[in-house]
């Protein structure tokens, strides 16, 4: 199964990158952890995100679209980074997450979410929707 693993933000990560000995050590530890993930054959993708002060939100309500500038509240619900892993089951994903070095200076959380499979969407897709998704999918592969 494929899962997305979210590193949740903290007050520290929201304050932006501070270059100090602790951060450097954390990057090293994270690099070693990624190496483990690669050698175990489960790492598909992963990256880090800039703080929400660099982000924007668009609020939807009927026809209206309202742009909201970051930073956003609910810091602990924000995402600071992610991986995509291919694992056998959730138990395996949980055990790998436990091995992750502390991703933040203080207490923090990592969240694991399984992807939908193609079959889950089957009923929702009309032939037109399928055709559009098809074009998009191939355009993405080309880029």
């Amino acid at each position: 199964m494929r899962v997305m693993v979210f590193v949740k933000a903290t007050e520290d990560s929201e304050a932006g990158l501070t270059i100090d000995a602790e951060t450097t050590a954390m990057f090293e530890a994270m690099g070693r952890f990624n190496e483990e993930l690669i050698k175990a054959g489960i790492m598909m993708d992963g990256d880090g995100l800039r703080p929400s002060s660099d982000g924007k939100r668009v609020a939807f309500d009927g026809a209206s679209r309202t742009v909201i500038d970051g930073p956003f509240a609910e810091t602990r619900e924000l995402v600071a980074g992610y991986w995509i892993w291919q694992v056998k089951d959730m138990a395996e994903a949980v055990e790998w997450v436990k091995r992750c070095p502390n991703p933040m200076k203080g207490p923090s959380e990592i969240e694991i979410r399984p992807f939908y499979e193609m079959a889950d969407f089957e009923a929702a897709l009309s032939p037109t929707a399928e055709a559009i998704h098809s074009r998009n999918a191939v355009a993405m592969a080309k880029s």
Partner: protein
Amino acid sequence: MALDPSSDVQQAIEAVFRIERARLIAGLARVVRDVGQAEELAQDALVSALADWPRSGIPTNPLAWLLAAGKRRAIDGFRRKEMLARKHAEIGRDLEDERDTQVEDLEAAMDDDIGAELLGLIFAACHPVLSAEQRAALTLRLIGGLSTEEIARAFLTSEPTVAQRIVRAKKALANAGLDFEVPRGAERQARLASVLAVIYLIFNEGYSATAGEDLIRPALCAEAQRLGRILAGLMPDEPEVLGLLALMEIQASRLNARTAPDGSPILLTDQNRARWDQLLIRRGLAALQRAEALGGANGPYALQAALAACHARARTAEDTDWPRIAGLYDTLAGVMPSPVVELNRAVAHSMAFGPETGLAMVEAIAEAPALRSYAPLPAVRGDMLFRAGRPEEARGYFEAAASLSQNAREREFLLGRAAAC
């Protein structure tokens, strides 16, 4: 929902064990020089963990803990043998020294690099002293962690057959006196080719599974991909490892698109490309790019991956870059000459340059003994003749292909084409 805490812990321990199992066996095999014994010691280590960890908690470095537990069992074994020896003969101090040396050797062997050990185990499981079937079974058992029963179901054979296959394979490896090192020098390329062939065999076994079959069969594709990714992680500079990985990722990207709801196969050109797994395609294209950057563009796996990539990049079937595919087949025919490659090459040329070109190439190989009862040969000829505006001749070839086909759905499809001529 309330969870039973004890079963929760047990599930966690089992997940940890699954993660560590192959590396644990690899580390122990290096010490005891016997995969069968290493597997038993690993199992003993799990038993110890299930007894200890619910009380002590899962250790920070579970692999080190499990290795130490397995090692203790191995040393106990050596000591028992020694006691027996002592009962049988007067040996004296020499043995004491020898025992210390053995224990020290064990300690030293445990400190080796785990990645290299896993690689050594993969090379051992794919060793040329074993038959192709033994290699696949042992690789799935030791590295993939599949049970004998699962392997039997996956390969459509009986459990006793697989059990015996594995026992014989372990015995053959023990007799070969392997050191579980990754081969170096000239031997390395030949042994690596064997490893890649085993992984691709496992992949193809899964790929050939049809709808409605036991799910363990298609799961072989995922297992082979995982093996390929592990290998690429351990040997990041081997172009053919990356070539094979690219080939499997791109082929697997189409697994969800290649069968209709009624189970009938859908040709590549007719597949709904929205169902192709884009993450796998991106991973495959990236691996191929790395293989090519390492100078491996003309490796057999890299070439086949490049062919698969041509289809993955095409927005629609009509967008397919057939001249490029024809060129890649020209190269592949030189690197990996076979009548089947020639036949595919003829198809590519017919798509790129017209059916007459393809027909001339097919005629040149039509008498090859390897293609005598190969249904795709007359099917391809029929298709080319049909496209060349010669339906009367095409019909006979479609009918011939239908009579050669082993697959009911395929036969139906070919008879349909014959009727349409």
